[in-house]
């Protein structure tokens, strides 16, 4: 194993080991736990940065872990420019979250397991990032799921937390059924689970389409794409830093990342890309519209994540993986910033509800500044990061409208139109949030003030890339790391997103202006409850999947107990009953015994005679 491969392993190993140590720490070892968590993330960051800056050829090294009847599973590291950059993003966010959490959860009495779980989460994501073997990738993939479960359920004061945690894991797990099957199909076709081997294998188009569609199920689950997006908004029950972690760099990004990892396969399966395009378009609008009507500040951000990830999916659907990754990176930066800043707000006012915020720009100047940068990036205001990446996505979609690329022309149209519409809505809800939280009259009872330094600094640090990362897209070296020559291209159509931005922001401002005390969303009228409940898809899911499954479970249990076990018990009782019958038959006088003997002999004789005669 080369030295660079060793460094790559460090991405995952450092937080992983820290996590294992942290899990067995006693609850009172709070400082040690925090230190360990930060150290782990720091080491991972250092390694990632080192590898990202070192450049050079892609690394592919590994050894056999185990062999399942000729199907080897290898512990392979496969790091290229993309992986290194994503790893940096993951590490940055993880470090920020670790530092932030120290202050945010200052009064939590179970900090060590929390910090360890965050480290484990980081390690799992890193494993997904660096693994060159699909099975090992799956390990990281699922460990992330369970970490999200643990962390979302961390807050024991929230009654909805356990439910949300279970939901998060289960919904993604359902998608993972497809993911596992897809991996299995690919591995079986290639005779190996190494990504390199899988990519090199020749698969029939049908098989490829099936496999990639199955993978897509898992991706949809992890990346919260329609129809498996329902877990993400509920996951807000977790502590805010966890939301940042999940939304920015780990869980939801993993899905998109894995698609780029296996992108040649997807490119060869246009049907899958078309499905992905439809999913992306639906999710984009769905998420954005749902975000408009939320009152919980974190839920607004959560729905925005759904919508933003759909941009990445859209880019993937039209055949532009580098652009998707570009948006992933910029989204990682600004979404982490948004959540952590929102955490500062929540920390300050003690509630998630925007109805009880307002006018906070004076009391929280730092937070105000940072959140403004974040929202601007989200809405795509030039020159913040989101502007460049989102524009790139729309540009590649516009190019794809002509067809002839990886995807069909209609997919390009669909993604492009949906993207434009979403840009408008995004601008609208970002403006609404900004206005509702920081402007108008204060609605909070207590005097709010800026967060402590440990919380403030990560936010400030994250504001930097949120503001500036977009310019990296202009850099050729950066683009080449992501696998393309240039990420950003301007043409006449680039005006359209800006127009949408202005229109959306203007509409929101106009609505707020009219009645600063009321929520601008009331302008939407009767659509509000529909949006607020995200088109009632939760209820649909509940009625179509959860309830039938539980009903089926009850039926199966009852029939298992009454029919299957009932048969067994009946056999036992039947034997005893037969015994009773036998004994009843023997309840006779002595003559009965003699009669049985004589009668038996007669019968035996008759039988023998028949036997002999029939010979």
């Amino acid at each position, binding site marked *: 194993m080369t030295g660079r491969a060793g460094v790559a392993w460090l991405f995952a190993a450092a937080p992983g080991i820290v996590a294992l140590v942290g899990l067995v720490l006693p609850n009172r070892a709070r400082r040690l736990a925090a230190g360990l968590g930060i150290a782990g993330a720091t080491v991972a960051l250092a390694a990632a940065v080192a590898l990202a800056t070192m450049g050079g050829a892609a690394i592919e090294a590994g050894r056999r872990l185990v062999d399942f009847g000729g199907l080897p599973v290898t512990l392979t590291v496969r790091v290229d420019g993309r992986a290194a950059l994503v790893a940096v993003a993951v590490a940055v966010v993880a470090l920020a979250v670790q530092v932030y959490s120290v202050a945010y959860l200052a009064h939590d009495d179970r900090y060590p397991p929390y910090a360890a779980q965050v480290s484990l989460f980081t390690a799992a994501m890193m494993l997904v990032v660096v693994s060159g073997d699909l099975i090992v990738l799956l390990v990281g993939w699922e460990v992330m799921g369970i970490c999200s479960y643990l962390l979302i359920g961390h807050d024991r004061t929230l009654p909805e937390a356990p439910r949300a945690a279970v939901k998060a894991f289960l919904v993604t797990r359902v998608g993972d059924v497809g993911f596992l099957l897809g991996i299995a199909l690919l591995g079986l076709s290639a005779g190996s689970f190494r990504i390199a081997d899988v990519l090199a294998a020749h698969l029939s188009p049908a098989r490829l389409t099936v496999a990639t569609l199955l993978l897509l199920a898992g991706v949809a689950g992890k990346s919260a794409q329609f129809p498996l997006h329902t877990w993400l908004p509920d996951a807000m029950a977790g502590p805010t830093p966890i939301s940042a972690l999940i939304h920015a760099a780990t869980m939801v990004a993993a899905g998109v990342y894995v698609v780029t990892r296996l992108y040649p396969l997807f490119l060869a399966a246009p049907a899958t890309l078309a499905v992905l395009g439809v999913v992306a378009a639906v999710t984009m609008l769905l998420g954005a519209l749902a975000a408009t009507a939320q009152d919980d500040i974190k839920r607004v951000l959560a729905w925005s994540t759904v919508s933003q990830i759909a941009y990445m999916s859209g880019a993937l659907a039209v055949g532009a993986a580098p652009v998707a990754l570009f948006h992933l990176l910029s989204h990682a930066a600004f979404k982490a910033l948004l959540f952590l800043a929102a955490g500062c707000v929540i920390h300050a006012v003690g509630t998630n509800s925007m109805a009880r915020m307002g006018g906070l720009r004076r009391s929280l100047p730092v937070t105000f500044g940072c959140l403004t940068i974040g929202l601007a990036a989200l809405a795509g205001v030039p020159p913040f990061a989101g502007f460049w990446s989102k524009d790139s996505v729309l540009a590649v979609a516009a190019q794809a409208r002509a067809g002839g690329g990886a995807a069909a022309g209609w997919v390009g149209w669909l993604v492009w139109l949906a993207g434009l519409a979403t840009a408008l809505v995004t601008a609208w809800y970002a403006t609404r949030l900004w206005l509702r939280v920081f402007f108008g009259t204060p609605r909070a009872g207590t005097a709010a003030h800026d967060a402590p330094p440990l919380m403030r600094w990560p936010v400030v640090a994250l504001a930097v890339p949120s503001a500036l990362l977009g310019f990296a897209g202009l850099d050729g070296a950066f683009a080449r790391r992501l696998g393309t020559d240039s990420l950003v291209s301007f043409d006449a159509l680039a005006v359209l997103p800006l127009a949408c931005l202005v229109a959306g922001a203007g509409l929101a401002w106009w609505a707020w202006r009219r009645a600063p005390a009321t929520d601008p969303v009331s302008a939407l009228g009767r659509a509000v409850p529909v949006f607020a409940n995200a088109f009632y898809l939760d209820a649909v899911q509940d009625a179509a999947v959860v309830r039938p499954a539980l009903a089926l479970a009850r039926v199966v249990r009852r029939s298992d107990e009454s029919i299957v076990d009932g048969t067994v018990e009946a056999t*036992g009782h039947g034997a005893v009953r037969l015994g009773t019958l036998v*004994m009843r038959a023997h309840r006779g006088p002595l*003559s009965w015994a003699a*009669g049985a003997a004589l009668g038996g002999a007669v019968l035996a004789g008759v039988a023998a005679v028949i036997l002999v005669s029939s010979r």
Partner: protein
Amino acid sequence: MHPVIPYVTAAVLFGLGGYGVLVRRNAVLLLMSVELMLNAVNLILITSDATVAAVLPATGQVFALFVIVVAAAEVGVGLALVLQLYRVRATVAVDEIQLSESPVEVPEEVA
């Protein structure tokens, strides 16, 4: 001579003896019926000597002799037992002798 005549006689005797064993309540009468059955066997044995080319001559008659003696011993013992039963129960009605304890008791647990 036609051996089928004593054979059929024996068969009917055996059947009557069996009938008696099953129908008679009095133990002594039951014993008498048993004697009829054993006599039927003897009659068959004796007749066989006439119908079959025995490897050892007169085996049937010898067999019959043994059967008679065994039967006598059985009757002696049987009567002794019947008398003992009469002493302890003051009856010789065999259908008052139950084969199973009554009522059949139900063990507590089942499979």
